[in-house]
């Protein structure tokens, strides 16, 4: 399988919706989500895998969408922050972030929530070490981390 020229016919699933569209071979998943699909919940900041604001879930694993080229998503299943709520019903992580006041500017929040979802989907009862290993790639520059950790832990207690 290969491209003609530098475009690629991408077929994948994003938030449960089948995608079938042309992408550029060196276009990152981050800007495809934001600029082509209008899914601007996923943020970009450092563009080198240090901040975690672009975190999405691909086939069940947390991934930095700024470091993935679109054609690599062929046949994959992508979840973004927009896919979490069920209509008006927020996901438990979203509810707990609100309840704990775990956001100030909010820029890091979608990435934090997706990293936390990947962590808890794999292991709803992480040890202290597993918790930090799962979350250490996501940086917040304004709240401090206490409220964020509290939100994730209280979501874990209600994890289904």
């Amino acid at each position, binding site marked *: 399988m290969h491209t003609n020229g530098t475009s690629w016919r991408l077929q994948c699933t994003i938030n449960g919706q089948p995608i079938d569209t042309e992408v550029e071979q060196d276009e990152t998943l981050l800007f495809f989500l934001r600029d082509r699909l209008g899914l601007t919940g996923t943020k970009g900041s450092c563009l080198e895998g240090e901040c975690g604001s672009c975190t999405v879930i691909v086939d069940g694993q947390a991934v*930095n969408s700024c470091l993935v080229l679109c*054609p690599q998503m062929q046949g994959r299943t992508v979840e973004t922050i927009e896919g979490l709520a069920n209509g008006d019903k927020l996901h438990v992580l979203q509810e707990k972030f609100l309840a704990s006041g775990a956001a100030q500017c909010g820029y890091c929040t979608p990435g934090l929530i997706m*990293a936390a979802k990947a962590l808890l989907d794999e292991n709803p009862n992480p040890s202290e070490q597993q918790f930090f290993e799962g979350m250490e*790639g996501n940086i917040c520059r304004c709240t401090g981390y206490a409220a964020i950790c509290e939100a994730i832990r209280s979501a874990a207690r209600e994890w289904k």
Partner: protein
Amino acid sequence: MFFQPRHVDEALEIRGRMGSDVTPLGGGTDIVVTINKTSMRPKHFLDLTHLPDYTHVVRDNGNWVLSAGATFSQLGKLPMKALAAAAMTVGGAAIRNTGTIAGNLGTASPAGDGCVALMAIDAEVELTHATRGRRTIPIHEYFTGFRRTALLADELITGVRLRTDWRTAWYKIGKRGSINISLVCAAFGMSPEGGVRMAYGCVAPIVMRTRLAEEIIEKDGLTDAAIEAAAQSVMKEVAPIDDHRASANYRRAMCGVLARRLLRELRIKNTG
């Protein structure tokens, strides 16, 4: 062109035909950073992430066999202490989920934590060509210069083999535990036959072993006097530079500290 082969033979054929005109792509955690930050655009990509068995890690006859696409998350679960600990200091979870051992070897940074760990256990790197077949070279012959390796432009890194029965130790000095490039890192290994490997990252243009120090320990064992002599030797053998992360003098001193710490750890602990 963007190639996304579904069979390894197809991947090898493309690489064999196109050589350095095509950029092999694994997790993308190095290459896509370059795309994001510079005007560099590879003309042709060879995406290896859809190959079958690309991420396999299997045990075979006293060896661990890592497929090229084994991720740092996978390596972090191996019962090989230095490699697992090194893997868990790479990036955050999202980087570890995509970054691969072949990518670490391909980038061949002197700060490549995974490369340092492999150097401490005499890993072997499998380099494969479409028609010439597979050759296996010892890791200490793999790195040939700053970001230069024995990989030929028409070959792919297809796997890494390492023995399961070495005792190992690891320590990374950095400003944080992860998401953080090492200032100095070290991985030491001892084979059941008494062979000693002392590997360092960030203290030379390539990941290096301090062979004179290794010989001291192999000859005299892990006595206090031998450990101190080895630490002194290490500080002479390494060739660190000053840069924005640390001074050469600091790095050199830390190499001695790590020699003492890790050799004592190997002396105390019987497993791992």
